[in-house]
């Protein structure tokens, strides 16, 4: 097998590996699907049961462990915005809207 491309392996934003597709799909839903955010906030175990995720991925998602998720191939931006959306859902009053 060819060695990994040195440029993309060093990059902060890397080519999303296909094995992380279910994880990125879930983060995308957390970022962009308000109904899924609601289900996830209510019960993260049930909300992520049918998404083809590994147990390790589900555990990191429940903790929103940024570095662990990114190490698994999650897209950093999706991790960032999923986390911000969860914060917005949890404490809407703590935010100032312009």
């Amino acid at each position: 097998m060819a060695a990994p491309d040195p440029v993309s392996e060093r990059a902060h934003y890397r080519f999303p590996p296909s094995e992380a597709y279910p994880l990125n799909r879930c983060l995308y839903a957390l970022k962009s699907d308000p109904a899924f955010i609601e289900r996830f906030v209510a019960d993260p175990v049930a909300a992520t049961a049918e998404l083809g995720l590994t147990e390790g991925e589900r555990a990191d998602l429940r903790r929103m462990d940024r570095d662990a998720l990114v190490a698994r191939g999650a897209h950093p931006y999706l991790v960032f915005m999923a986390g911000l959306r969860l914060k917005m859902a949890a404490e809407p009053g703590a935010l100032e809207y312009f």
Partner: protein
Amino acid sequence: MLVGAFAVAHTPQLLIRPETEDRDLVLRVHAAMGRVKQRLQDLRPDAIAIVAGDHVEAFFLDAVPALAVYVGRECAGTFGPYRYRLDIHEPLARAVVEQGIERGFDLLYTQDAPLDYAFYVPLHFVMPEPARPIVPLHVNVYLPPQPTPARCHAWGVALGEILRGRPERVALIASGGMSHFPGTDRYASPEFDYDRGLLDLLRDGRGRELARVTGEELDKRGNIELRTWITLLGAVGDVRADVYCYEPSWHHGNAVVEWPLPTP
């Protein structure tokens, strides 16, 4: 014709401020955006073309276009509690996609994709009254492999020629930048000195030099979104930038810039 050119930060904390963000800094960036709004008011554009990098919102991993044009009658999106719907300048959008393809740029077009907040946040603050129709232009910045800075610049050159050949008065806005690393372990340490060096270069009217920067360099400096600026720079050429503000927060270099264009 092309009557105005601006770059405007779009970090979501400018629209929805958590307690982690310095309120005075946010208001200073708002004031700079208010100057852009006034300039747009004075420039009387018929349409606003806005170049932004979709944040994996309209284009997830099911389809990843390098360059895209919104060509429907209108476009809409949501961000948190914000629900927005904006008219598209359809004849202009169609001219951009048709002439862009004639010039060798294989543009994706959409009449239906949602509009990301990267487009909305600047327009929320700078849209003149009455509101003008827009032409949203996507450049892939977040999903590697992204278009090279050279390709973005070449697209901007073509875009500038297309817009100058049109009867409408068009203002061009690049959304995003400067240094930031969302979702990475570099989040709290952006490259502000790099940003300041870039702004000096732009003040000198040397924007075309950015066409030679590599994608690797942009990633290393937290400036992958600069592809939207580089696209705009292709359109504006060697005009000297007027930097309205550069406000580095603990995680983001917020800039608002105008390239004052000669009257067409």
